[in-house]
């Protein structure tokens, strides 16, 4: 698994990149009450705001970590946004991205580097 400075995680599953937010991010956000998911099939560019997560405290943007196409979103979050708190790095995944260049995932931090970042 790889991590971004925006506290997202990326996991390569076959030819897709699964994206969610880290446990650290979900703890910082507090109870999540709404996830605004993008349309499946949407083409996105790196750093574009693609998802909005509303917690009891505030709204936060999730950025596309890479150029690509959103091929699947986690519809379960529509009815149960709390999944992002309960299992942020598992059932609380947010979207799957089809990218041109899977190797670009490797430019992101590994677990140790991310842990150093959050201290």
């Amino acid at each position, binding site marked *: 698994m790889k991590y971004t400075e925006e506290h997202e995680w990326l996991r390569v599953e076959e030819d897709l990149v699964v994206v969610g937010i880290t446990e650290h991010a979900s703890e910082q956000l507090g*109870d999540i*009450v*709404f996830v605004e998911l993008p349309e499946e099939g949407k083409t996105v560019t790196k750093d574009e705001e693609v998802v909005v997560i509303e917690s009891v405290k*505030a709204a936060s943007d999730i950025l596309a970590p890479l150029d690509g196409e959103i091929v699947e979103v986690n519809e379960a979050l*529509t009815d149960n946004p709390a999944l992002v708190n309960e299992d942020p790095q598992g059932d609380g995944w947010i979207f799957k991205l089809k990218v041109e260049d899977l190797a670009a995932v490797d430019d992101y931090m590994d677990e140790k580097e991310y842990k150093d970042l959050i201290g």
Partner: protein
Amino acid sequence: MADLNRTALYDLHIELGARMVPFAGYEMPVQYPSGVMKEHLHTTEKAGLFDVSHMGQVVLWPESGKYEDAALALENLVPVNVLDLKPKRQRYAMFTNDAGGIEDDLMLANLGDHIFVVVNAACKDADIAHMRHHLSDTCKIEVLEDRALLALQGPAAEAALAKLAPEVVTMKFMDVTALSINGVDCVISRSGYTGEDGYEISVPSKDAEALARALLADPDVEPIGLGARDSLRLEAGLCLYGHDIDQTTSPVEAALDWAIQKARRRGGERAGGFPGADRILRELETGPSRRRVGILPDGRAPMREGTPLYAAQTGGGPIGNITSGAFGPSIERPMSMGYVGIDHAVDGTQIYGEVRGKRMPATVAPMPFRASTFKR
């Protein structure tokens, strides 16, 4: 967090694992490890203990010794009937300004030979200066710097507090009484800021931690932070000063007409005589141009403070804006309050809130969103 005040319960908050944030010049617990949602629901199902010691506690001692003299002096600052407030009773009020806006909202209580006042933390310095300036001829103004304030709220509050002070069972909503808890002199009111039955307890700072621990020893009582306090008060339809009411909003626009008793209205025994009376009394008769209302977004996205409101999905200028918005854990949906032009201030009216550039449907709705459970 430099330059921030701490309440008498600071060490206890840290011990309980609170996340502390700056609030109105104090380091306050925004949440404990269980989080805002669970804390909110615990309060509505059992009982929550809140540290509200940052609020200002002030006593007005009439120089004459007569409550009436302090009451009549205070009536010069608030559009409320203070004179006829019965002993051991509390009432909601607001300091108004010459433009008819609200400088702060407050609770005042008739404690026989004095008036006990509780004001918001963020406004307390200004409020105290305001009272000193206008009331010093008739009253000695004593600021209770060395007292903490705890709120115990929720359906299990009565039983939990009664273990320490059995007399509280007989109190009704907005009763206030001085009594001893474990040998400590406290002032207790049956009121709060959650829409739930409960109490607020003014206690000497040095005894506050022991009292808090005694209350938390009850398995039904959990500590609750400012995050859940905010969602509880919003579900209860209660105003937050600086957000839902401020120096520009009149009490009538804010739908606080109920707090202005007949005696202070036109034709009443002591009509007017408070700052901004011209505007406020006129608005009571002819109606304001805008009004604070409850707003329920039709969808799941919360509409937060500052969200502009529109009458239609496209076109037209804003008809108002949201002043508080959050997710309501008990009602399991987002909720807001805000101001709309008077034509739209009718329950059931369809309006639109602009969230991230899109106008999303919402409905003007009665408040409270969660039924209050006061013991009347």
